[in-house]
């Protein structure tokens, strides 16, 4: 098992956002995390990369156990080097060009020399179809283009897993397709992905596993075919009925 997440809990003031979330991820898995807004999906993902500190819970990554509540800075940094994160609103570095956005993590975060970093960045930007915009700034790009650059930035550090936090939710409907296509290709290449999403087609056709959350709890985790065709839980059946009526 590549990733074993156990019993993640998190409260914001009096509100319980995560109430004991556990999940297993195997190498090459593409896990879609579904659920209504406010169910804690994003918080869950952010806890895994220490962007939020969980109140309790643990994560075993490649056999190494991390306490999600208290871990040293150095360990967090080491863990983050094995992972990458794609944000809902892209979070490209606004003062850097497309090329620099991808190289900065390599040179400044991983100590790679500039020439090599640029070669890697170019390769990644070609994969997402953004190699013709190297000198553009994020503000000069559409949302879909920015998100593709963000995915290239995530891939460049050669992570073992990429976390996607609603990567298409901020996009115009017409631009969603280009981002999903990149993600699908990434999945086909065997990248392990944990994707918080509202894209049912992606969850059904690209991911191999689905976790459905509500009210900070896991309602059901199942292989995606089974989740969509023969769910065990009544709540999930209701969810499937509703999305099929759309």
């Amino acid at each position: 098992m590549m990733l074993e997440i156990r019993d993640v809990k998190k409260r914001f003031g009096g509100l319980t956002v995560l109430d004991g979330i556990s999940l297993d991820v195997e190498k090459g898995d593409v896990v879609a995390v579904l659920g209504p807004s406010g169910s804690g999906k994003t918080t869950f993902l952010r806890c895994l990369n220490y962007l939020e500190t969980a109140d309790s819970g643990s994560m075993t990554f490649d056999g190494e156990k991390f306490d999600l509540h208290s871990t040293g800075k150095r360990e967090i940094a080491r863990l983050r080097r094995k992972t990458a994160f794609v944000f809902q609103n892209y979070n490209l570095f606004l003062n850097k060009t497309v090329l620099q956005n991808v190289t900065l993590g390599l040179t400044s975060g991983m100590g790679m020399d500039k020439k090599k970093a640029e070669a890697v960045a170019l390769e990644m930007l070609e994969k997402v179809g953004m190699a013709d915009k190297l000198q553009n700034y994020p503000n000069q790009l559409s949302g879909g283009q920015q998100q593709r650059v963000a995915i290239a930035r995530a891939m460049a550090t050669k992570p073992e897993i990429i976390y996607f936090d609603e990567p298409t939710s901020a996009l115009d409907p017409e631009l969603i397709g280009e981002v999903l296509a990149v993600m699908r290709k990434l999945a086909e290449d065997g990248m392990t992905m944990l994707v918080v999403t509202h894209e049912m087609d992606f969850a059904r056709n690209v991911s191999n596993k689905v976790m459905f959350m509500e009210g900070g709890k896991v309602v059901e985790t199942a292989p995606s075919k089974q989740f969509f065709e023969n769910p065990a839980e009544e709540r999930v059946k209701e969810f499937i009925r509703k999305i099929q009526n759309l």
Partner: protein
Amino acid sequence: MTERLWGILTDSFPKMLEYGIKVTIPLTILSFALALTVALGVALIQYARVKGIRQICRFYIWITRGTPLLVQLYIVFYGLPKIGIVLDAFPSAVIVLGLNEAAYMAETIRGTLESVSAGQLEAGYCVGMSWPKIMWHVVLPQAMRTAFPALSNSMIAMLKETSMAATITVMELFRQAQVINGRVYEPLALYIEAALIYLIFCTILTWLQHRGEKKLGSYGGVRT
């Protein structure tokens, strides 16, 4: 205008200008450099919420913004020698002007640092960068660009405030005007002439600010 007055003005202009260029401008540049350094440090400490030192920074800002520049100059130049700290007039002026303006600039920079989206920091962390590196490569450049017009304002204000250094015997542009006036007693004409020279300096600074803003532009030419 009488011939005498015209003669006084044409004689005094190069003298005042000389002290403006030789003293007022270096005093402004040095004080501003000190102010910028201190302001950056104070702003970063507050932004990073460093415990303990942060309270010291708030205290410094409180004292400095809450007391007049003129009084501060007097304390440092006339007061400190009483406890054995004797500074020349020029360094006294640099220190007081610099530390005084730094308090205002620190608040400006802290504000612009906090205006940079938290997502920029998070994205930096997620590609394996450390806090200092994210600050250096990503957050500070964005914050300083936003702060540029306000910091230019501070510099222009500082250039004019250097005239206060005349009160602690720094022989600068305004002090020179006072000295000449003491000899010839033409206060209206001489002080207007001094004012004009300040105006020229400030106009040049304003022009430089506009050029600077244009050069910095905003990333990709789109305002955010």
